[in-house]
C-alpha cells in the first residue's frame, strides 16, 4: 500500500519568498502561497494507523509549528502545484525517513517526496505556468503538475547486465563523427580514427564501456587536450605588424616556470589533485579551484552544490583535511529584461540565487567556512555562467601516500552509484545551445554533503593509520577516470557486480562511467581492509572492494562473469594523438576616450555597480566561522559590512605557532575582452595585493590558474588563451610566485557566443603572525591615509568604463617590478605600523577610499595624485599595484622610511561623516577643482542598496 502524508507549517518563509518573487516573473496577482511537504510512504504490507501516527509525531511533524494530514490530497484553496524530483535524483529526505521508519520498528518503507504549493490570488493559466516554470520547478531534474503527482519511485526492475559491442571497424569519417555526436563522446574524427585502428589491431569492435571510457579519459575535461597541444600563434598588433610563434604545450609552459622558481616551501605542483605548500614545520596546505559551469547553467543549485563537493574531494585526493572553501561567480545581469533572455537559458537572477543556495548548502553542511570570493555581472555570461569553487586543506607533512602496489585492493568508499551524472566530463567538453538541457540533463546531479562529510572523517583517520597506499576521487567519469588513472602504471582488474547501486537496473557501462559525487577510490593492502571496514562502519560510510591492482598493465573490467573492458592502459593513457592547433590574436585598435565630469554622484555610481556593491546578502548565507579559525573575515569593519581584501585563517589544531594561511583572488574579465595577456598579469596583481593588504608575505605566495574560455578550436579564442598563458608565465617570473595547480574549462559558449575570456588567479600565502593581520576597516579618526603605487591613465576594462559606457580599449599597463612595494607594505604590517589597508581595484581609488570609510564608519579627506591623468581617470582608473594604507600620525616617519618612494601621504581619516576627494595636479595640496564631497550615509546606501546608519 502507499499512503500520502502532507505536512504544512503554520507560517512559511518559503511561501512568502514565492510571493515576493512573483512580480519578478511578471505575475502580480499572487497574494499568498502555502507550502506543504508531501511524503508517499509505500510498504509491502499494511501500514497501521498507529505506526503512521508515530512516524508523523516523532519524525515528520513539529507540532509547535506545523500540522499534517494523511490520505488523499486536500482540495486546493487556490491553484495547487506539485513538484517532485525525477526518479533517481538524490533525495536525502526520503532516505532518512526510510531509516527512521526502520529505527521505529515500522519495517521497510519506500519513500518518495514532493512539494505542494497552494497559490492563492487572481491567477490565470499563464500566471500559474510562469510561477511554476520560473520559480518552483526546473524540468532538468524535476517534474511538476497542477493537482497531485503520483509517487516517483525509482524503477526497481533489475535488468540483466548487457555489454554491447559497438561496430566501428568499417565506418567512414562521416559515420565516425555521427557516432561521436550521438553518444556524446565529444571526440573528433582524428581521435575516433585512432580508436578504430586500435580495435582493428585487437581484432574486434569495442564494447560500449570501452568506447565510453576512452571518451571520458580523452575528454578535454580530463586530459586537457588544448593545454597539451602544439599551437602556432599568429599575433597581429594594432599597427598591422604580424609575428608567428610556436607554443609547445601551454601546461608545460606553466609547469616550467614553477620548476624554475622551485622555492623550498613548495611540496607538490601539478602532479596531483591539488597543489601543496608548506605551512608550519608539521603541516602542509593543499589548495585547488575547480569550475562547474555547464551543470550550474542547467540546474544552478545542483550544479554549484556538486561543484563544492568535487573540489573538496580533490583535497581529499591528496590526503588532506578540507578546512575552507572559496567561490567566484560570474553571471548575466541580475536585472536582465526578459526579452533579452535566450531560449533554453535560465534567468541570471535565478541562476545566481540557485548557485548561492547550492554553495551554501554544501559548504555549510560539510562544516567548511566559505571565506573568500567575488561576483562579476556581465552580459557575456547570460547563456553560460561561471562557478569557480575552491577548497583549502591541511595535511601532515609527508603523510600523503601516492603509490599503489601490486596486490592492493581497489576500494571505493562513499555514495552509491546511480544513473545521474553520466557524461559529465564529455558534456563539459562541448558548447551549449537551447537543446542542451534535454540532451544531457542526466549529467546534472544533486549533491549529498553528509555522505561526503563521512568520507572526510574516514580519509583523515585512514591516512593517520596508514591504511591505504594511494587515493583519488571519483570525479567526472566516475570509476572509469579514478580507477583508470590509479591503475595506469600497474593495471587493474575490477568486478562491477559488487558495486552498491542507488537502484537496480544499471548497465555495466553506466556503473563504470557514472559520476557519483561522494566517492573516493583507494589502493588498500589486503591486511588493512578489516581496519578500514571498521572505520567506515564507525562513520556511516559504505565501502566496496572492487578488485585489485594486478601488474599486468591492462585495464580489465568484468560484471560477474561478463567481460566489460579489456584494454591496455598504455593505449588508454598514451594513445591520444597530440593536437596541432592554430591560433590568432589581433590587438584591438586604440580608441579615443573622453572622460565625463566628476561629481559626488560618480562615486555613488561606482559604488552601486553590481560588481562593486556589497555582497553581504550572499556572504551571510555561508558559514564563515566554523572551524573556529577565521581571523580576517569576508565582511569587516565597525558594522561588519565592509568588503574584505582576503581571508586569513588559522587552521584548527595548529596553535603551536602563530602563523596563519591567507587566501585571495583576482580576476578582471573586462580587461580580458581587450587584452588577455594584460588580464593575466592584472588578475595576478590583484590577487597578490589583496593578499598583502591583510598581512600576507609576498615572498611566500603560491598561485592557481583557472581559465574559463570559449571553444578553443576557433583560432581567435585560442589566440586569446595563448596570450593569457603567456601573461601567467611572465607574471609568475616577475612576481617570483609559482603556479601549483590549475584547471581549464573550455567550450564556454552558448549558441556560438563565447563568454568573455576569464582567468581567475587564486593566491595562497602565509601570514607569519596572525596577530599582525589587518583589514580594510580598522582605522580611527585622525589616522593618516597613504597611497602605495602610481595610477594609470587607461580605463579599458574598468568598472567606470562599464558604468559610463566609455568605449575605452586601452587597459592599464602591468607592473614590471612589483615585489619591492609589496615587501615594503608587508614590512610595515609586520612592524605593526598600519591600522588598515585596502587595495585599489574595481572602481579605482575612489571606491577604495569610500569602502574604507564605509567599513570604519568614519569620514575621509583625500587628495589623489593625478599621475598625469585627468580628474575622472585619476579617481576611477584600475591601474595595478596600488594600496591605500591607514596609520597613526605618530608613525609617520617610521612608515615613510619603510615605504620610501612607494608611498605618498594622501589625506586623513576625519571625524565628520563625509568622503572628501580631490585630485592633485602637481603636488599634494594643489587640488584641481573644488573636490567632491559625498555624505557617508549616501555612500553606505549606494554600496548596500539600502539606507543604513
Amino acid at each position: 500500500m502507499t499512503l500520502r502524508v502532507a505536512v504544512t507549517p503554520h507560517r512559511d518563509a518559503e511561501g512568502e519568498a514565492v510571493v515576493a518573487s512573483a512580480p519578478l516573473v511578471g505575475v502580480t496577482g499572487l497574494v499568498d502561497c502555502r507550502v506543504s511537504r508531501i511524503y508517499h510512504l509505500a510498504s509491502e504490507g499494511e501500514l497501521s494507523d498507529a505506526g503512521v501516527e508515530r512516524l508523523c509525531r516523532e519524525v515528520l511533524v513539529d507540532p509547535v509549528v506545523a500540522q499534517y494530514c494523511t490520505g488523499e490530497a486536500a482540495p486546493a484553496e487556490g491553484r495547487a502545484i506539485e513538484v517532485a524530483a525525477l526518479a533517481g535524483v538524490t533525495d536525502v529526505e526520503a532516505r532518512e525517513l526510510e531509516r527512521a521508519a526502520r529505527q521505529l520498528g515500522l519495517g521497510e518503507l519506500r519513500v518518495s517526496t514532493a512539494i505542494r504549493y497552494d497559490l492563492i490570488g487572481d491567477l490565470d493559466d499563464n500566471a500559474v505556468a510562469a510561477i511554476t516554470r520560473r520559480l518552483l520547478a526546473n524540468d532538468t531534474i524535476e517534474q511538476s503538475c497542477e493537482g497531485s503527482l503520483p509517487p516517483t519511485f525509482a524503477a526497481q526492475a533489475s535488468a540483466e547486465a548487457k555489454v554491447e559491442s559497438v561496430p566501428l571497424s568499417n565506418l567512414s569519417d562521416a559515420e565516425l563523427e555521427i557516432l561521436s555526436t550521438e553518444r556524446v563522446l565529444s571526440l573528433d574524427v582524428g581521435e575516433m580514427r585512432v580508436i578504430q585502428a586500435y580495435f582493428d589491431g585487437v581484432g574486434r569492435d569495442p564494447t560500449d564501456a570501452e568506447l565510453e571510457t576512452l571518451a571520458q579519459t580523452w575528454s578535454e575535461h580530463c586530459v586537457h587536450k588544448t593545454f597539451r597541444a602544439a599551437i602556432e600563434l599568429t599575433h597581429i598588433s594594432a599597427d598591422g605588424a604580424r609575428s608567428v610563434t610556436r607554443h609547445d604545450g601551454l601546461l608545460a609552459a606553466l609547469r616550467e616556470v614553477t620548476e624554475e622558481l622551485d622555492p623550498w616551501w613548495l611540496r607538490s605542483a601539478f602532479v596531483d589533485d591539488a597543489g601543496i605548500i608548506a605551512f608550519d614545520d608539521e603541516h602542509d596546505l593543499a589548495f585547488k579551484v575547480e569550475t562547474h559551469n555547464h551543470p550550474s547553467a542547467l540546474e544552478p543549485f545542483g550544479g554549484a552544490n556538486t561543484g563544492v563537493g568535487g573540489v573538496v574531494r580533490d583535497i581529499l585526493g591528496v590526503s588532506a583535511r578540507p578546512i575552507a572553501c572559496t567561490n567566484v561567480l560570474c553571471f548575466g545581469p541580475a536585472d536582465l529584461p526578459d526579452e533579452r533572455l535566450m531560449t533554453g537559458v535560465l534567468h541570471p537572477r535565478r541562476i545566481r540565487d540557485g548557485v548561492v543556495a547550492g554553495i551554501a548548502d554544501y559548504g555549510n553542511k560539510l562544516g567548511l567556512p566559505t571565506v573568500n570570493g567575488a561576483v562579476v555581472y556581465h552580459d557575456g555570461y547570460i547563456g553560460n555562467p561561471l562557478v569557480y569553487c575552491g577548497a583549502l586543506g591541511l595535511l601532515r607533512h609527508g603523510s600523503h601516500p601516492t603509490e599503489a602496489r601490486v596486490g592492493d585492493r581497489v576500494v571505493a568508499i562513499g555514495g552509491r552509484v546511480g544513473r545521474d551524472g553520466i557524461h559529465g566530463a564529455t558534456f563539459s567538453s562541448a558548447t551549449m545551445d537551447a537543446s542542451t538541457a534535454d540532451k544531457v540533463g542526466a549529467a546534472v546531479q544533486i549533491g549529498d554533503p553528509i555522505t561526503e562529510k563521512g568520507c572526510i572523517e574516514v580519509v583523515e583517520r585512514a591516512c593517520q593509520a596508514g591504511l591505504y597506499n594511494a587515493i583519488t576521487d571519483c570525479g567526472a567519469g566516475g570509476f572509469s577516470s579514478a580507477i583508470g588513472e590509479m591503475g595506469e602504471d600497474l593495471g587493474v582488474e575490477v568486478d562491477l557486480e559488487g558495486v552498491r547501486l542507488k537502484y537496480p537496473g544499471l548497465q555495466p557501462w553506466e556503473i563504470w562511467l557514472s559520476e557519483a559525487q561522494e566517492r573516493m577510490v583507494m589502493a588498500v593492502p589486503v591486511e588493512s581492509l578489516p581496519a578500514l571496514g571498521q572505520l567506515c562502519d564507525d562513520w556511516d560510510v559504505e565501502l566496496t572492494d572492487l578488485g585489485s591492482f594486478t601488474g599486468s598493465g591492462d585495464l580489465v573490467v568484468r560484471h560477474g562473469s561478463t567481460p566489460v573492458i579489456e584494454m591496455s592502459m598504455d593505449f588508454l593513457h598514451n594513445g591520444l594523438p597530440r593536437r596541432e592547433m592554430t591560433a590568432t590574436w589581433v590587438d584591438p585598435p586604440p580608441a579615443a576616450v573622453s572622460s565625463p565630469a566628476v561629481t559626488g554622484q560618480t562615486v555613488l555610481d561606482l559604488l552601486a555597480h553590481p560588481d562593486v556593491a556589497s555582497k553581504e546578502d550572499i556572504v551571510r548565507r555561508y558559514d564563515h566561522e566554523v572551524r573556529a579559525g577565521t581571523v580576517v573575515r569576508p565582511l569587516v569593519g565597525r558594522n561588519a559590512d565592509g568588503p574584505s581584501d582576503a581571508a586569513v585563517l588559522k587552521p584548527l589544531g595548529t596553535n603551536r605557532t602563530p602563523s596563519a594561511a591567507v587566501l585571495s583572488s583576482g580576476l578582471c574579465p573586462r580587461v580580458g575582452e581587450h587584452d588577455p595577456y594584460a588580464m593575466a598579469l592584472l588578475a595576478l596583481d590583484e590577487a597578490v595585493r589583496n593578499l598583502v593588504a591583510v598581512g600576507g608575505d609576498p615572498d611566500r605566495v603560491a598561485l592557481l590558474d583557472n581559465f574559463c574560455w570559449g571553444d578553443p578550436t576557433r583560432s581567435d579564442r585560442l589566440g586569446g588563451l595563448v596570450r593569457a598563458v603567456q601573461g601567467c608565465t611572465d607574471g609568475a617570473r616577475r612576481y617570483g610566485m609559482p603556479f601549483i595547480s590549475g584547471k581549464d574549462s573550455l567550450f564556454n559558449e552558448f549558441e556560438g557566443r563565447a563568454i568573455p575570456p576569464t582567468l581567475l588567479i587564486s593566491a595562497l600565502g602565509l601570514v607569519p603572525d596572525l596577530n599582525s593581520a589587518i583589514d580594510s576597516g580598522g582605522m580611527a579618526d585622525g589616522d593618516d591615509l597613504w597611497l602605495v603605487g602610481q595610477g594609470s591613465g587607461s580605463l579599458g576594462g574598468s568598472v567606470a568604463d562599464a558604468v559610463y559606457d566609455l568605449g575605452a580599449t586601452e587597459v592599464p599597463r602591468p607592473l614590471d617590478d612589483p615585489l619591492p612595494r609589496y615587501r615594503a607594505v608587508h614590512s610595515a604590517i609586520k612592524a605593526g605600523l598600519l591600522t588598515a589597508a585596502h587595495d585599489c581595484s574595481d572602481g579605482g581609488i575612489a571606491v577604495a577610499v569610500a569602502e574604507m570609510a564605509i567599513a570604519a564608519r568614519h569620514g575621509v579627506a583625500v587628495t589623489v595624485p593625478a599621475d598625469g591623468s585627468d580628474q575622472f581617470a585619476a579617481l576611477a582608473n584600475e591601474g595595478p599595484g596600488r594600496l591605500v594604507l591607514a596609520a597613526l600620525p605618530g608613525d609617520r616617519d617610521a612608515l615613510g622610511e619603510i615605504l620610501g618612494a612607494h608611498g605618498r601621504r594622501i589625506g586623513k581619516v576625519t571625524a565628520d561623516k563625509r568622503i572628501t576627494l580631490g585630485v592633485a595636479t602637481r603636488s599634494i595640496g594643489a587640488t584641481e577643482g573644488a573636490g567632491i564631497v559625498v555624505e557617508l550615509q549616501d555612500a553606505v546606501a549606494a554600496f548596500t542598496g539600502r539606507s543604513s546608519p
Partner: protein
Amino acid sequence: MTAPPILIVHASGTNRDGDAAQAVELAGGSPRIVHVNQLRRGDVKVGDHAGVLIPGGFSYGDALGAGQRLALELRLWFGHELSEVVAAGKPVLGICNGFQVLVKAGLLPGPLGGDAAAGVRQVTLAGNSQGKFECRWVALRVEPEVRSGWLQSIRGSVIRCPIAHGEGRFVSAGDAVTDELETQGLVAFRYLSCGAVSPDPSEPIRAAAGAYPANPNGSSADIAGICDRTGAVVGLMPHPEDHVLDWQRPNGAPGGSGLPLFAAFVSAARQ
C-alpha cells in the same frame, strides 16, 4: 586539577565537534569525540563521562527538520543513559544543532509541570524568520535569573560570538509556555541589542527586543538558549565555542569571550 572526560557526540553531519573540543580543552576538560555508532555498539559508554556536549552541525543533513533524526536516535537508543546523566547532575550542553537535538528529543525544556501534557513538544526551533541560513556575530547575556546551577558563576555576563544557522527561531506553543519558562528561570540566554562586533562600553545592556539583526532569527522574547528544571541540561543557538581565543573576535573588541561558559561547564563536570 583533573581534566574531566567530556563526551562530544558526533552523528553523521556533525561539524563543530572540533571547535567544541578545542573550547573544552582550553577550559580544562578532556574532550572525546565519539560517533553515535560507537556509542550504540557499546564501544564507548555515555556514563563513563563527566559531561555531555552535543555540538553544532547538520546531523543527518537536518533531513526532516533540524536535529530531528539525531533526536530520535537519542530517544530510542540512549534515553535511559541520558536521563541517568541528568539525574546525576552532570552537565549536558547542546550548541546550535545540539540545542535543536535536545529540544526535539524532549530534554529541553523537559517537563514543565503545570498543565502542559507530558510528551508533547512545548517549544521548538523553527526556520529563521528571514527564511534563510545566516552567519553573523551576536551579543547575548547569560540571564541573571537563570535556574541552572552550573551557569550561576557566569550569570549576567555577556558573550559575543557568531551564529550560523537556518533554523534558530525559538518558538513556544503559547504565551503560557513562555511565561512558564520565564518564571521558572529556564530562559538561559537572551540576544542583546548592544554591538556584537564593535561594542561600545557606554551602551546599556538591553535585550534585542525582537529587532533584527541583534535578534538574528526572530526568536520569541529574544531567547537564544534555555535550560531544564534540573539545571543540568543547557542549550543555545549561538556558538560560544568559536570565541574562546582573543584573536577569534573581529575588530579586537575586548571582552565577551565564550570561554567562561566552557569553564563553568567543565567545572560542573569536575564535581
